[in-house]
């Protein structure tokens, strides 16, 4: 894997202007990160540190920041395709599982068999004609995952996609994510406040400060990919990290 920088993010400042009596709020300041091709990066930080704001800037949902985000085109597309797995699944309730996924495909994305494969790989096959209201949160999140992978994204943004699930379900979904990502490699930015989750998933971990968010520490995670489902390996890494770096001595 060539360590080529693919995407550059350099935010000098992201300010939310004051509203009424509330003062202006600096969400991000001097935040730089480069993403390599097909790299899995976890952003770890306390809640309210501007993680979602950062993802929204990268996704182009929020353009009101001071700085520069370079997302060059990939694979001959005019712009890179961005997949986003939001914290809430944001499935359209009036469309079935399959219809929700198909909605985001271009007419030119002729390869609908991709969708079939993804639905099968994630165990959603029996629910393809089900409306989201009848799905559990875990299943809804699988659909959101499939939707994001279905567009064959050049960059995949994930905003705490496994919070408020019971731990066994969350763990199943993490392993599922790793499997799907292994078969369809893409650059991932994954936001979490769970250190174990970050260690299990990421190639590289960036620790963010409380607001205004900036990168405090960068850790390469060298656990072999085939040992990521082993809790002992994750726990070892975590213990070592906390011992060596006082910044991680928080209550992650």
């Amino acid at each position, binding site marked *: 894997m060539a360590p080529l920088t693919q995407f550059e993010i350099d935010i000098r400042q992201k300010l939310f202007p004051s509203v009424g009596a509330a003062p202006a709020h600096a969400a991000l300041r001097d935040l730089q990160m480069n993403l390599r091709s097909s790299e899995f990066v976890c952003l770890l930080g306390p809640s309210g540190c501007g993680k979602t704001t950062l993802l929204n800037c990268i*996704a*182009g*949902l929020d353009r009101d920041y001071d700085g520069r985000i370079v997302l060059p085109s990939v694979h001959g597309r005019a*712009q890179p*395709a*961005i*997949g*986003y797995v*939001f914290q*809430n699944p*944001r499935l*359209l*309730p*009036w*469309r*079935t599982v399959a219809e929700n996924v198909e*909605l*985001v495909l271009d007419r030119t994305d002729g390869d609908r068999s991709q969708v079939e494969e993804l639905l099968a790989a994630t165990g959603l096959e029996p629910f393809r004609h089900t*409306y989201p*209201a*009848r799905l559990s949160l875990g299943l809804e999140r699988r659909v959101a995952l499939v*939707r994001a992978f279905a*567009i064959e994204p050049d960059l995949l943004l994930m905003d705490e996609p496994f919070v408020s699930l019971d731990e066994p379900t969350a763990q199943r979904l993490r392993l599922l994510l790793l499997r799907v990502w292994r078969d369809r490699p893409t650059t991932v930015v994954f936001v979490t406040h769970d250190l174990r989750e970050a260690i299990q998933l990421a190639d590289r971990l960036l620790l963010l400060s409380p607001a205004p968010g900036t990168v405090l520490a960068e850790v390469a995670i060298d656990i072999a990919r085939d040992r990521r489902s082993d809790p002992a390996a994750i726990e070892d890494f975590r213990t070592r990290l906390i011992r060596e770096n006082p910044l991680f001595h928080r209550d992650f």
Partner: protein
Amino acid sequence: MTLHRRTLVQVLSLALLLALWQVAAMLVQDRVLPLPTVVFNVMVAGFQDGEIPYNIGITLLRVVASFALAMVIGVALGIAMGRNRGLDRFFDGWLILFLNVPALVTIILCYVWFGLGEVAAISAVAINKIPNVVVTLREGARALNPDYTEMAQVFRLDRAKTLRHVVLPQLFPFVIASARSGLALIWKIVLVVELLGRSNGVGFQLHTLFQLFDVAGILAYTLAFVAVVQIIEVGLLQPLERRANRWRR
């Protein structure tokens, strides 16, 4: 069980109304309040010579035309005003003005300006209805869920797709609400429009019957008309709404 019971109550209460009418007519003994049986016979005769179906048909066509016109223009304007604050501020005054112009004034002005024709009749009805549709849809467009809008934006859905699959389904309850109340309003205004400037349709017929003091004829038309409106409500609007809501739990 409860459904049957409700139907039973409804039938009984309508039967009671009919009985009251019967008693009142028997007491009054005058052609200004004919017996239900007399009205029924007039209705049957009207259907047999084709006069009632013809006039109801003409009125229905006008209703359909003005309803479609009002819904298309009203929905488009309502969405635009709900989504664009500048537009909303600019047209808000117009909206308040048009909401408060009496229906009769609109009808008279349309006939004066566009002549006593079909175009004037249909536009008069539509103009009366459009402001209500705009107000309802504007509320709906303001309440659009930004989560879905962002999803559509990130996944680069084009405008047409976003409108059709993300925006309109959210507005559907508002469209149905304004269609319901719209139909109820349009039925009534169309009759006035016909009374004032057309030479056929239920409104025109009622006018003629009024001049003849033919109350039996008036009631026959009224009941036939109410029946048709109910058939459209139960047979068309309600199934449409159920179909569109099948995704709800």
